[in-house]
């Protein structure tokens, strides 16, 4: 396992978390819960972008791990 593939794995977990959170935000009945799920989803989204950028950087530095 290379670093890049580890980071990619984490990125996909984050995407899954994001999807689950948005599903909870839609399905919850309580307004407060809806809000919290939505807010945290946006935070997770920021982290996802950071990680995605890092993957681009890593791939540029070491093109052999691209894919």
């Amino acid at each position: 396992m290379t670093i890049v593939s580890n980071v990619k794995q984490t990125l996909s977990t984050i995407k899954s978390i994001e999807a689950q959170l948005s599903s909870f935000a839609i399905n919850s009945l309580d307004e407060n819960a809806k809000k919290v799920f939505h807010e945290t989803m946006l935070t997770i989204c920021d982290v996802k972008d950071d990680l995605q950028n890092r993957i681009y950087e890593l791939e540029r530095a070491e093109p052999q791990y691209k894919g």
Partner: protein
Amino acid sequence: MIEVKKMPGWVVIVGRSIIFLLLMLLTTKMLGKKQISELSFFEYVSGITIGSIAGEVITGLESNLYHGALAIIIFGLTTLLVDFLSLKSKSFRDMVEGRGTVLIRDGKVLEDNLKKEKYTIDELSALLRQKDIFRVADVEFAVLEPRGTLSALLKKENRPLTPKDLQIKTATEKEPQTVIMDGCILDEALRSSGKGRRWLQMELEKLNLTLDNVFLGQVDSYGELTVDIYDDKIQVPSPQQRPLLMAMLKKTQADLELFSLETECEKSKTMYKKNAVKFQETIDKLAPYLIG
């Protein structure tokens, strides 16, 4: 009542029973739920009287039907009037419905009040035991309500522990909606939980069930479906999405911290660290909603 005399007795009783049953149903409906719970002294008395008047008239063949009906109507109307006046005036309420009597204050039994209500200490301890209190010393405050029930407040250290005592933040929860009953979809409940039939079909498919198998299905505050099926031998998985999401969040947070230790690039190190902190905050924020 000439025509009544000509009829046989049992016909009269059947006829009167039906009439009075309807009349009493109407009276109690008019007086509302309070009449049924017999909360106040007045309702208790009027409830008994209405019942016995009806019984008397139905079985007493020689008595006049209209007199009985009149008495019931008067009792019903008076109770209604008293209820109305009680709503308006506090002093009237105290007079008619009575006030609670304090029997224990600051952990001490007030013997004078006990005597006034003609309660023995045995009866008081019996009432306390019904509330699972076996030591009078544990009680901070107890009131004998007008209806004869005892309300007791335990001392702070003897009260059950609440999340507030432990300073745990809890999420508010909406009441669960029953959306499937006896294999039928209840559309109204489904709508008030903000879901549709298609969603329900999808959730049932996820659980590998058909609608006919489900005896009871409820949707909770988070839109998760829990079911009880006819065949008790089959195990249905309980919703795992929320604990699973928490586990994923924790794993990712740990991963981010690991990356921040592994990388040699300073810029990425701070990026990973910052995001690990963000994740931790998110976990703390979501904990009340995802656990429990």
